C-alpha cells in the first residue's frame, strides 16, 4: 500500500522510506523547500512537484538510494508568469547497485518569469546496474522569459544505463497553424497545446482528486 505525504511550505523535511515501502509524495506549490529522502532496500518513491502559484519558489529535492533495488520517479511541472522566479534542484544519488531513477520536469514560462532547473545525478562506484534517466523540457511563451537548465551527470560505475535530455522551445507553429486551419481560434489552439505539453506529467498523478486539482489550477493560468 502506498502512503501519501503532502508537503506545503515547510522549509526542511527529511523522509525515510523503509525497506520495501512504496510511497507517493506530492508537493503543491511549496515556496521554499529542502526535501531529503532516504530510500532503504527495495523501496519505491513516486514524487510530484507542482508549482502553480504566483510566488517565487526554491525547491530542492534530494534522494539517496542507500540500499539496493530502489526505484525513484520524480515528476515536476511549473507554470510561471509575471516576474516570478522558480528554482528547482534535484539531487539523486545512487549509492548502491540495481537502482532505478527517472525524472521528468516540464516547465511553461510566460511574461518575464525565470525558471532554473539544476539536475544532479550521481552514480557512485558501487552502484552497478543502475538505470537513471532525466528529462527537462521547457516551453517559452514570451521573448523575455528565461530558462536555465543545468543537468549534471556524474557516473563512476561502468555497468549502468544513464541518460539525460533538456529542450527549450516555443509552441509548435505548424501545430498552431494546423489547428487554426480547422477553425480553432489561435488563443484556444495555444491553450490546447499547453495543456497537452503539461498533460504528460499530469497523467502520471495516481490520485484522482489531486490530478483534477492540478488540471484546474493549470486551466486557471491559461
Amino acid at each position, binding site marked *: 500500500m502506498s502512503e501519501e505525504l503532502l508537503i506545503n511550505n515547510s522549509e526542511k523535511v527529511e523522509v525515510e522510506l523503509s525497506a520495501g515501502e512504496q510511497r507517493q509524495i506530492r508537493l503543491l506549490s511549496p515556496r521554499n523547500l529542502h526535501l531529503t529522502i532516504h530510500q532503504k532496500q527495495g523501496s519505491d518513491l513516486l514524487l510530484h512537484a507542482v508549482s502553480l502559484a504566483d510566488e517565487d519558489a526554491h525547491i530542492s529535492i534530494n534522494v539517496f538510494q542507500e540500499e539496493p533495488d530502489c526505484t525513484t520517479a520524480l515528476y515536476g511541472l511549473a507554470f510561471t508568469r509575471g516576474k516570478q522566479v522558480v528554482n528547482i534542484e534535484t539531487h539523486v544519488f545512487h549509492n548502491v547497485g540495481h537502482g532505478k531513477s527517472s525524472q521528468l520536469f516540464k516547465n511553461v514560462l510566460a511574461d518575464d518569469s525565470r525558471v532554473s532547473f539544476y539536475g544532479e545525478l550521481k552514480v557512485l562506484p558501487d552502484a552497478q546496474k543502475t538505470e537513471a534517466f532525466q528529462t527537462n523540457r521547457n516551453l517559452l511563451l514570451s521573448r523575455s522569459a528565461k530558462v536555465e537548465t543545468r543537468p549534471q551527470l556524474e557516473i563512476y560505475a561502468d555497468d549502468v544505463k544513464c541518460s539525460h535530455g533538456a529542450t527549450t522551445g516555443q509552441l*509548435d*507553429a*505548424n*501545430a498552431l*497553424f*494546423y*489547428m*487554426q*486551419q*480547422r*477553425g*480553432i*481560434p*489561435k488563443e*484556444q489552439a495555444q491553450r*490546447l*497545446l499547453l*495543456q*497537452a*505539453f503539461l*498533460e*504528460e506529467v499530469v497523467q502520471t498523478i495516481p490520485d484522482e482528486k489531486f490530478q483534477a486539482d492540478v488540471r484546474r489550477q493549470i486551466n486557471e493560468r491559461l
Partner: protein
Amino acid sequence: MLDINNLHATVGGKEILKGLNLHIGEGEIHALMGRNGAGKSTLSAVLTGNPAYTVTEGTVRFNGKDLLGMSPDERANEGLFLSFQYPVEIPGVSMVNFLKAALNAKRKYQGLEPLSASDFLKLKREKEKLLEITSGMQNRSVNEGFSGGEKKKNEVFQMAMLQPCLAILDETDSGLDVDALRIVAEGFNKIRTDKMSAIIITHYERMLDYIHPDYVHVLYNGRIVTTGDASLAKEIDDRGFDWIEEKYND
C-alpha cells in the same frame, strides 16, 4: 466562389507566385498540376493564411469577401479547408478533442450552440463509416504515429466532419496504396455536394480517374500557364511537363 487576381507571394525571401490568376465557380472541381517545387503548396499555404508566407501583391475574394484580410481560423470557418500535403502530428491533443474544438468553433462562428455529445458521436460514426476508418484511430493524438495513408485518410475524414464549401486537396493521393486511394477518393465523392468546389493538387492522373475535374491547370514559373479539361491531365501523365514548360519559358 474564389477569385484570385494577380497573386504574388514569397516564402523565405523568394518569390514563388508571380501573378497567379484563378477563378473557381460553385461546384467546380479544378485540378492543379505542376512539377515539384512549382509552388502548388505555396498557393494552398497563402490561401489558408499560413504566416510563414507573405503576399506581396494581388487580391483574393472568397464568397465575395476579402480572403487575405481574414485570420486562418476565420478563413476555415468561412468554409475553406486544406487537406495538408504533410499533416501535422500534435502529441497530447486527442483526435476527439481536436474535432470537437474545430466543429464547435465553426458553430460558434455561425452563431450556433455547441454540438451535444451524442450528436457529435453520431456524426463522427457516420463519417468514419464513409471513409472506412476504425474508431481506434480517433482515440489517439492528432496524427501521432499514423502511417502516411492513415494521415491522408484522416484529412479527408476531417473534411467530412467540417463540410467545407471549398476544399484544397494537396497531394492527398501521394503515399496511398491503390485501395486507400480508392477509399479516399470515393469518400471525397460521397462528401461532395453540388455546391462544394475543390482544388485537387496532384502530380498524377490516377486521383482524377475517381474525381473528375472540370478544369486542369498547370502551374509554372509562378503562374497558371495553361488550362484544359481532363484530357490535359492524361497528356501530362503520358508526356510529362517538358513540352508545356518549353512553350512558356521566358
